[in-house]
């Protein structure tokens, strides 16, 4: 009885968040239609979804880590290092595609493992450990490229990054949606999902109930790194070449989106679809800001204010209930 109460409350909270986000997205589209009549088209929406897809995939991983009560600040560097190694192994040839993907996945798993070991075995605070990993990865890709990378991705990856499925939906959007559905199923209908929520809500109680807390947290960090690798590959496909600044925005952006999506920074609360809509909302907002000639500076300010305001709002809401 109580369990079903709990579940229904969680679901209703989640769907309320999604409703708010959908409403905000609609408002932004209406605003855009007012500012630039005729600019709201399906193609434009799909374009924004393509831009949101890499961020959205990173967010899926970040959501998992934050659900378990941690934080992953290494996602940005993982995106960049994936880009660097993918390009360097592909050398613009399709036959090297799978080698490159395997190498990148290996790097991602290694980074995730370092995060997990630092956080769980060495008991270092998650944000310090993941920042450390981030710095080390940065060092590795800077040494590897000597600071000036070059090269191109293989044509097939470029096709995936830029192409449209059935002439309408970009491939990255499809992959993003597929991954989101998979994660949603895993979180909602498998023991892994229930354990993840339990660990985030109260690790001690979860441990006493016989859940292997460490195993859940390790898989969260590993999956987060793998999602970042996937995002890095898609982003590489989209830009077609390499860039050392590719991953810069992902840390604060992913954090902002996870928080907009209704996840609690303390863990144990949130879901997949809030982040899914949140990523789209953030990219739509940025597109609108570009439309009204707000530069990078303004976007950064707005991003910072969003992160702070959302957490503040959660606090205020929780405080009133308590």
């Amino acid at each position, binding site marked *: 009885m109580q369990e079903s109460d709990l579940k229904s409350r969680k679901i209703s909270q989640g769907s309320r968040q999604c409703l708010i986000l959908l409403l905000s997205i609609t408002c932004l589209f209406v605003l855009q239609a007012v500012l630039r009549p005729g600019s709201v088209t399906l193609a434009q929406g799909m374009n924004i979804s393509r831009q949101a897809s890499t961020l959205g995939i990173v967010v899926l991983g970040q959501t998992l880590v934050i659900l378990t009560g941690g934080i992953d600040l290494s996602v940005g560097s993982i995106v960049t290092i994936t880009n660097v190694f993918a390009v360097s192994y592909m050398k613009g040839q399709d036959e090297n595609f799978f080698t490159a993907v395997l190498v990148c996945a290996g790097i991602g798993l290694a980074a995730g493992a370092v995060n997990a070991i630092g956080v769980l075995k060495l008991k*270092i605070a998650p944000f310090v450990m993941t*920042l*450390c990993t981030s710095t080390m990865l940065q060092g590795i890709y800077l040494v590897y490229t*000597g600071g000036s990378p070059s090269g191109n991705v293989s044509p097939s990856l470029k096709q995936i990054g830029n192409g449209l499925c059935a002439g309408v939906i970009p491939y990255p959007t499809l992959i993003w949606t597929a991954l989101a559905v998979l994660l949603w199923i895993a979180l909602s209908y498998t023991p892994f999902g229930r354990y993840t929520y339990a660990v985030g809500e109260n690790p001690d109680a979860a441990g006493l109930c016989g859940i292997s807390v460490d195993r859940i947290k390790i898989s969260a960090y590993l999956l987060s790194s793998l999602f970042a690798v996937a995002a890095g590959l898609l982003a590489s496909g989209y830009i077609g070449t390499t860039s050392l600044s590719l991953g810069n925005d992902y840390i604060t952006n992913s954090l902002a989106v996870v928080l907009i999506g209704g996840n609690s920074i303390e863990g144990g609360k949130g879901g997949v679809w809030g982040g899914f809509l949140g990523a789209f909302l953030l990219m739509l907002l940025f597109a609108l800001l570009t439309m009204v000639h707000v530069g990078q*500076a303004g*976007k950064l300010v707005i991003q*910072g204010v969003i992160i702070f305001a959302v*957490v*503040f709002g959660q606090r205020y809401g929780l405080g009133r209930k308590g």
Partner: protein
Amino acid sequence: MSNIRIKPFRNPKVGSVAVIYGLLLVVFAGMAVVSPSYRSIENIGNIIVQCIPLAIVSMGQTIVIIGGGIDMSVGAMISMSTCIAAVTMSSDSAVSVGGGLARVLLASSGAGLLNGLGVNSCKVPPLITTLSMMTVLSGISLAILPQAGGRVSKVFADFMMLRAGVLSVSLLILICVYLLLRRAMYHSGFGNAVYAIGNHQGIAASMGVKVKRISILTYVAAGVCAGVTGLLLASRMRIGDPVIGTSFGLDSITASAIGGTSLNGGEGQVSGTIAGAFLIGMLSNMMNILGVNHFYQYVLKGILLVAAMIIYSISNTLEVKRHAGI
């Protein structure tokens, strides 16, 4: 009963501070033996001047960490300070330099104050508050100066960079800031209160410590330290740079951790942090002299931080065991 009142500066961590200074000496002595140019007065002065910005900003970070918080925004504060300095201090007149100084310090302490209010009044976790402050401030820096540029008054810059042998104005500033903070942390009620709220906010509050005010003050102190660091960097480069401070956030945390400050709050030494900052600076300098690709510094810093945390956690465990008599 007599050992209930533990003065912070007599706690056992003083031993670990001595160890870091010893390590510093070993690194220095090793390099001095290997390379004759290394032990020249000129180079020693150089190393000191290079390490000072990190040392100053890390002292502010240490105070925030001791008080149980964390400040990720110090890097962005430094960038913003150099930008403000480069825009407002372009002429050599006393009014322009004085006005610029005032604006830089006001802006950085204001940012620190907002951090403090966000953490204490809005109850947003320190990491999130200062991360969003970092993002906002890097936006503001970009708005002030889209690219590195502007101009810092030559008279002011020359004065700040004045050097005679190993002595320099920046060293003097470091010593002044250190003495001020030392006075505040170990010879006033403020210091005891900072250690108290870092150890346990609830207990500190019930003992009559004004938790909110003290915590806000720690963030303001970190802001001022970041502002001073920004001024030093601006006078070294003679321009402003909106991304110059990026690495200082993590580096200052690393310096604090190496210096024996626990990231859980409530323990640490400002003097240890200076040693930590110098250790980072000297190791980077050493790698340059040995001809190691300077990008390896990123890897080195990460490893240093992890190593420091592991060593301290082991030594803490040992100490607990010793006290328990096992």
